[in-house]
């Protein structure tokens, strides 16, 4: 602050940015979520032109704009950790009390890793390349958190 700035009339007022929202997953996203919810299967989409299996799914290939609507393939519910971080700052938007692990997990059969929660192991023991498997949620949130978390498993 400049030293000559007169702040005698300055103060702050608390408020919010609070508005209701309704998000639609669309046909492709919905199929992924309902399959996850009802069958505990994780689906990907395959772009033949880019020779890539993408998870999460998308209707259009981001890279070549090819239509991927009907190019579903199932990927495994097991995979390996390719990267991770430990979230240690508490905040209201976080799904868990800190600390918790956010890992990038490459599922069997997928070419692109997804980010998810890794639990069942102390954060300091998490390592790249470890094998993990999905633990499915008991109640649906209609999001990727129908996988509750991933946990370590035998390779």
């Amino acid at each position, binding site marked *: 602050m400049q030293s000559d700035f*007169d*702040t*005698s*009339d*300055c*103060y*702050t*007022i*608390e*408020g*919010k*940015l*609070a*508005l*209701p*929202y*309704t*998000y*639609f*997953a*669309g*046909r492709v*996203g*919905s*199929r992924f*979520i*309902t*399959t996850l919810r*009802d069958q505990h299967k994780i689906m990907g989409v395959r772009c033949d032109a880019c020779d890539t299996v993408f998870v999460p799914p998308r209707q259009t290939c981001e890279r070549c704009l090819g239509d991927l609507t009907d190019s579903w393939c199932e990927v495994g519910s097991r995979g390996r950790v390719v990267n991770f971080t430990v979230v240690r700052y508490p905040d209201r938007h976080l799904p868990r009390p800190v600390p918790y692990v956010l890992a990038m997990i490459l599922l069997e059969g997928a070419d692109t890793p997804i980010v998810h929660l890794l639990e069942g192991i102390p954060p300091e023991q998490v390592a790249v390349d470890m094998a993990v498997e999905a633990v499915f949620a008991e109640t649906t949130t*209609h*999001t990727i958190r129908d996988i509750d978390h991933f946990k370590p498993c035998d390779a």
Partner: protein
Amino acid sequence: MTTYFGVDVADVIETMPSRFRKEAAAGISGRFGYDLGEAGRWRLAVRDGDAALAPAEDLDDCLAVVATDPQTFVGIQLGKIDATEAMALQKLTVAGDRGAFGSITRLFQKYLPPGEEALPDTELVVLKQTISVGQTFATGPVMGRFLKGLKQKKILAMRCPVCGRLQSPPREICAVCRVRNTEWVEVGPKGEMRMLEYVYYASPDPLTGETRETPYGAIGVLLDGCRDEEVFWHLLNPAQLDRVQMGSVIDGQVRHGSRLRPVWAENRTGSIDDIQYFELDD
């Protein structure tokens, strides 16, 4: 009965209790009327998570009554007709407590014609949430001084040093002259009604996330000491919405509006709420 969009209107009505989502209805009770023209009049009684539907001649005891023709009713149920548009066209009206009726309509699962099942791959996933992030809004020295004035029941304005325009609430600058406002003056607190926005439409207040009560009147008051379009924006006592007269100036012809005075809040903190609203200064 008749079919619309290939669906028997009776089936839509009679499946209402079975489509009622008990789990979502906790704490909601009341009677709601459906006046469906040639498809009859129906009363839906909701209590403690249960719903009962019965034909009824008299719907006077209902919290809200929706009146529409059977075709529109079925169309809305099937998602073929938009309810808001039906209202715009007068094909659907809601008498009584619109808000309560709105909450009831959300308690039914979507109607599916016989033989159609909700297949997993046709289900379209929806995520409803209110996003709320706390904010600390700065007043800065200009708005701060104005808001502090309200604490002392004073309405302050700033005057442009070039064109003399008054602004209240004040701005740091006069947009027209592109110079800082420098001079403070006290205006009002009484004034003349210039403009009334009679608001029927209830919408959420983003500062709280709550839905506003309607009707309310947002008003432009020409405070004493101000001229032309230097109006002050606030609320009108909702009980006086139909009693005020707007003023105007057209081609120099002045027509005066109702005289208004502010009603000050008892506990004033230096915010817009320090004035509850304006009311007629009889």
